[in-house]
């Protein structure tokens, strides 16, 4: 994985794990890799992974059981919450981009409904 050089790496690991949970790639009660395994996998310092797991624990997304490892919380609301969180982020990025291109709310709304019914307009996308 390539890291964004302008954001703390531990936060990027936190976001990656959240994303995997939201996409059901890691399920509630699944075991996460050990800190050492993940550090080797991602070419980072084990201390950085520890910091990421600590952050996930503080947000109650994972629990660490002594001697057994770190597990995704068994909380049915969690996946939903993460999905919403990520959806809001995607919307946010989309609106910031559209506004920077000078589209008004009405135009954006029109484009969205058009997109939902017809898919993307190839000619418009190219021009």
């Amino acid at each position: 994985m390539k890291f964004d050089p302008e954001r703390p790496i531990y936060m990027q690991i936190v976001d990656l794990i959240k994303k995997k949970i939201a996409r059901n790639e890691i399920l509630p009660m699944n075991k996460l890799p050990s800190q050492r395994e993940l550090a080797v996998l991602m070419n980072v310092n084990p201390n950085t992974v520890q910091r990421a797991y600590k952050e996930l624990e503080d947000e109650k997304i994972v629990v660490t059981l002594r001697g057994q490892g770190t597990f995704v919380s068994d909380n049915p609301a969690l996946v939903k919450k993460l999905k919403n969180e990520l959806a809001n982020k995607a919307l946010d990025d989309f609106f910031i981009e559209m506004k920077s291109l000078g589209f008004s709310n009405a135009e954006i709304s029109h484009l969205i409904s058009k997109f939902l019914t017809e898919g993307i307009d190839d000619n418009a996308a190219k021009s």
Partner: protein
Amino acid sequence: MTMLLKVENVSKCYFGKTALTNINYSLEKGKITGLLGPNGSGKSTLLKIIAGLIPCDSGNIYIDEKPLSYRTKADVAYLPEVDIFPPNIKVKEILAFYNKVFQDFNFKKAKKLLNELGLQESLTPNTMSKGMRTRLKVVVTLARECPLLLLDEPLSGIDPLSRDQIIKAIAREFASEHQSIILSTHEVFESEGLFDEIILLNQGSICLRGDAEQLRESSSLRKLLEEVYR
């Protein structure tokens, strides 16, 4: 937090040319420091002084609260930037030699590392690529179970695969409970995921130091690097 290494007001000149000016730095147990800076900024000189290979002109150094002496050499494993192995001695014999010289050398770990880094005991350095020779240096350094590892440019000028293998070996073997590492590099962005903290040297002085994650966020590191490397 206990300091494994303390460097106080260290200065060094080579034949009247300043190499280091008033370096102050301390390293906690369990941390990896990235020692960054362009070529000629004093990185290797600082590591050699800490390793006890060359004297400093002024200042003090303490390793685990003991002043630097021949005794502290037992606490330091140093990976030099240059080639150190005789060209036609088998890897097997090199490992046996290290095992004899260093009391803290873990022979089993060395064999395991050799395997993980894709090297064979029957090879000799004169038939190995630069990347392979560097991997061998990493094997014999990481196999020592000692508190302070000094790695001078272990990632420079080698193929991407070797680099990746070396970074993984460090991530796997770093004993964060009782060990610290200083890793120097002029290729800054290759290895930044490994660092807890960063020191940036320029013309023999520390021009920036701090927590790697905070520096990444504040982007001051990036700006400074651009200036220093310009």
